[in-house]
């Protein structure tokens, strides 16, 4: 290990997190995922692989879904981050959340926040995706419990009901 010359200090990050102006300090090498969970205290975003292959850590960054394990916390300074914690209206559920419950689209539930954040981004862009489009859009999110059947149906149901 070579000693580096530049000291690695934490960097201030100011972003809009779930609609709220939020400031925190993150190590420059820290992922957005780790900062959300360990610094900000929002543990709804899950780590499944830490290399962008399972989608459990999906958040929305300036309106586009990303794997937060592959984003540096320092990058989100001045940007808009939306996580599962910001999805439901006060004292209510988002139609997708309701549909996931009614369709039994979760078993263990660890992948659920990632799927919900990803599915919301899809329905915001395309209110009536067909089954193939839903499956394609959600291909970056792994679920090992459900075989995806009920997840796809829940997204279809939410799409139908929000018309």
């Amino acid at each position: 290990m070579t000693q580096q010359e530049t000291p690695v200090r934490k960097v201030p990050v100011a972003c809009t997190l779930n609609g709220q102006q939020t400031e925190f300090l993150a190590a420059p090498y820290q992922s957005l995922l780790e900062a959300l969970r360990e610094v900000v205290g929002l543990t709804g975003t899950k780590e499944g692989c830490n290399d962008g292959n399972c989608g459990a850590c999906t958040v929305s960054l300036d309106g586009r879904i990303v794997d937060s394990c592959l984003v540096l916390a320092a990058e989100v300074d001045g940007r808009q981050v939306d996580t599962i914690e910001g999805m439901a209206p006060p004292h209510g559920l988002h139609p997708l959340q309701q549909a996931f419950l009614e369709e039994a689209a979760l078993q263990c539930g660890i992948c659920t926040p990632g799927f919900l954040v990803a599915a919301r981004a899809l329905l915001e862009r395309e209110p009536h995706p067909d089954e193939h489009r839903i499956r394609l859009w959600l291909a970056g999110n792994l679920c090992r419990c459900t075989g995806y059947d009920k997840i796809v149906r829940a997204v279809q149901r939410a799409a139908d009901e929000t018309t």
Partner: protein
Amino acid sequence: MHPFIYVAPRTLDEAVAVLEQHGERARPFAGGTDVLVQLRGGRFDLDAIVDMKGVPEATTLELNGSLRIGAAVPCYQVYENSAVAAAFPGLIDAASLIGGIQIQSRASLGGNLCNASPSADGICPLIVHSTVAVVRGPQGERRVPVEEFCTGPGATVLERGELLVALEVPAPARGFGAAYQRFIPRNEMDIAVAGVGSALTLDTDGTTIASGRIALAAVGPTPLFAAKASAFLAGKPATPETFAEAGEIASTEATPIGDMRGTAEHRVELVKVLTRRTLAVALGRAQANR
């Protein structure tokens, strides 16, 4: 992970200065979809990450007949731009299949090139489009044809302090068509077992191939320009027989290994099939472009 600092320069000169200062211990950073994974896997350590997303030259997508893709432009900006999508469907083939939607929000074709993976999906279509990589370094700017950019697995022509600024894709000639396909065992989220990019330009008669370019992925140490198969196409009729023969020739230019993603024999077969299939798609696009 070895601690590193995060630098977000606003100009190319600033970025070059940081890279020059740290040498191999700094890297340009766009989507992070490769570099962060490699850092966590212990493949190398860095002292500084240079985020290119604040540098205008690296983040601009310009269509002016020819196409200039800033090195940090994420895939989705390429495929969601309807003018680009109409003019360069062969590039869209690749930009829309790298990773899943989450990855496409971040990963860039420039990053895909700099990562220099033998199986990179983005590089073959750039090669068959005769794309030039615009490189900036302490000595100024230089331009490198994409097929010469990668020198080995994970290795490129970039010298200390140099970075990729943008990719310049020439305006497609009349009668030009290109396509990229890869083979993966799943339907998404996999690394190519083999990939082929093909392009051809039809003669004015609309049935003869004036010139063609074929590039192969995951069948050698770098994505490679299949020179023999490409040369073979010139002057040939644009027929399934020609495409099949081009595939046979291309397969002789492949030097695959067998690994967890597929056997060497399978990869050779895939080169034949994908060459044939991509040429057929490219032909359709070329005919539409006359």
